[in-house]
């Protein structure tokens, strides 16, 4: 498996159940050093096969179809099927190594552990972000609560039925507003273990803007949207929301709550392209290469964990996407995310 060149290691995964899926998920994020060249499972609905298709990884319905594939450096067998080992031994190219049985189980355990830690970290970042929103959330909850209390008192004192009706409608309006805040918070804090769903990016971007409003006490951010028609993408809505909330919150905080936020979605060169730009102070050339590094932050203690953009990058890669940032000091920052066009 020792390669002289800088070529990524080519890996075949046999078995696309839980273990195989977790392995594909992990390796897909390390595309610079690892390339999954094929995934096989006899069950056409195996979750790993679905994930592989989404990531444009070739799939097969039997191990035999992949075992003899030329150029693979390693076959990882997580089928748990003893007969597969014999098939591999018989059919594989001499230069291809194998990992199966106990070693594959050990690998699966480590991958599962990594997966759990990553999920915990992602959730922790979400809750930490939410913590910084607390003052503003309290503010936004207090206003409708105040209105409900006062309108209820007005009703108690009122005899005119038209006015009573008018005040009741105001209470319902305040209730709707409260519900929308709570629904937004619930969607954002939901654990990311849900099934992928069909996501309309403009709606999710708008939802992220609403959440990110909590990041500032100012109310002077002008939001300019250029949403061109794009097909819905399949992803975990909570994870997608976390990507956008993180970037937009950074933008709003960088602008100190005053400036212009420009959001765009379009299809370009077979990719769904999402752009998020701000008119903040920008990022210096010295800091730019570090922004996706875990625990790197320019925010004050207690404001940022330094995990946000690192998690954003991980989540973008998980969906086969890429993220890049362009910025110059004094000229704002522009983040561009590209996801493969859904097939």
């Amino acid at each position, binding site marked *: 498996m020792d390669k002289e060149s800088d070529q990524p290691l080519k890996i075949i995964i046999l078995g696309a159940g839980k273990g195989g899926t977790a392995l594909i998920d992990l390796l897909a994020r390390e595309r610079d050093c690892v390339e999954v060249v094929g995934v096989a499972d006899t069950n056409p609905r195996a979750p790993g096969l679905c994930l592989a298709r989404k990531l444009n990884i070739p799939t097969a319905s039997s191990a035999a179809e992949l075992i003899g594939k030329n150029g693979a450096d390693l076959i990882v067998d997580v089928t748990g099927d003893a007969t597969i080992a014999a098939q591999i031994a018989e059919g594989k190219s001499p230069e291809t190594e194998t990992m199966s049985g106990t070693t594959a189980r050990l690998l699966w355990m480590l991958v599962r552990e990594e997966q759990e830690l990553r999920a915990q970290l992602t959730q922790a970042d979400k809750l930490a972000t939410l913590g910084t929103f607390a003052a503003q959330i309290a*503010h936004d909850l207090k*206003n409708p*609560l*105040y209105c409900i209390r*006062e309108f209820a008192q007005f009703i108690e004192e009122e005899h*005119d039925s038209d006015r009573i009706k008018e005040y009741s409608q105001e209470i319902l309006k305040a209730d709707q507003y409260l519900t929308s805040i709570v629904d937004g918070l619930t969607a954002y804090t939901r654990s990311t273990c849900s099934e992928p769903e069909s996501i309309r990016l403009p709606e999710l971007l708008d939802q992220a803007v609403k959440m990110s409003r909590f990041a500032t*006490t*100012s*109310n002077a951010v002008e939001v300019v949207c250029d949403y061109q028609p794009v097909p819905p993408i399949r992803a975990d809505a909570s994870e997608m929301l976390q990507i956008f909330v993180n970037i937009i919150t950074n933008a709003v905080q960088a602008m100190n709550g005053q400036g212009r936020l420009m959001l765009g979605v379009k299809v370009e060169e077979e990719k769904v392209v999402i752009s998020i730009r701000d008119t903040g102070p920008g990022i210096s050339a010295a800091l730019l290469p570090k922004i996706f590094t875990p625990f790197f932050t320019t925010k004050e203690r207690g404001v940022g964990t330094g995990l946000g953009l690192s998690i954003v990058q991980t989540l973008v890669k998980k969906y086969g996407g890429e993220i890049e940032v362009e910025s110059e000091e004094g000229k704002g920052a522009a983040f561009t995310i590209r996801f493969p066009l859904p097939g």
Partner: protein
Amino acid sequence: MAWLVSERSVEGRVLVIDDEEQIRKVVGTVLRKGGFDVVEAEDGAKAIELLNSGDNPMMIDVIICDIRMPHINGTEAIKYFRAQYPSVPIIVLTAYPDFQLATSMLKEGVTDYLVKPVDREKMLMAVKNAMEKRSLFAT
């Protein structure tokens, strides 16, 4: 009808500045029920426009102003009012129980700092007190 009586401008005129329509309606109703005449503006810019629109600014006896608003926020608007109309008392009405902000606002010359949700009596008392201060200045 009690409503018609209370809507009459008997106590003075209050300018209520808040970007949320419901808050303006609540505060406006409380004040009208308390006997005040009420003028509303949805943000600092609109309030400044209103005050400079040819109406005699002295017609406004008290300003009640929110802090978090688009265009020109409360702190900027308050600075402007203090400079342009120093004799008009200003009451801050905000949902931020922020001691530092309250201190800095009081230093700016704000008469009172009320935190939502505020009791009706407390709000009316704050407006009446502000109004009395204005009379003291005037005499």
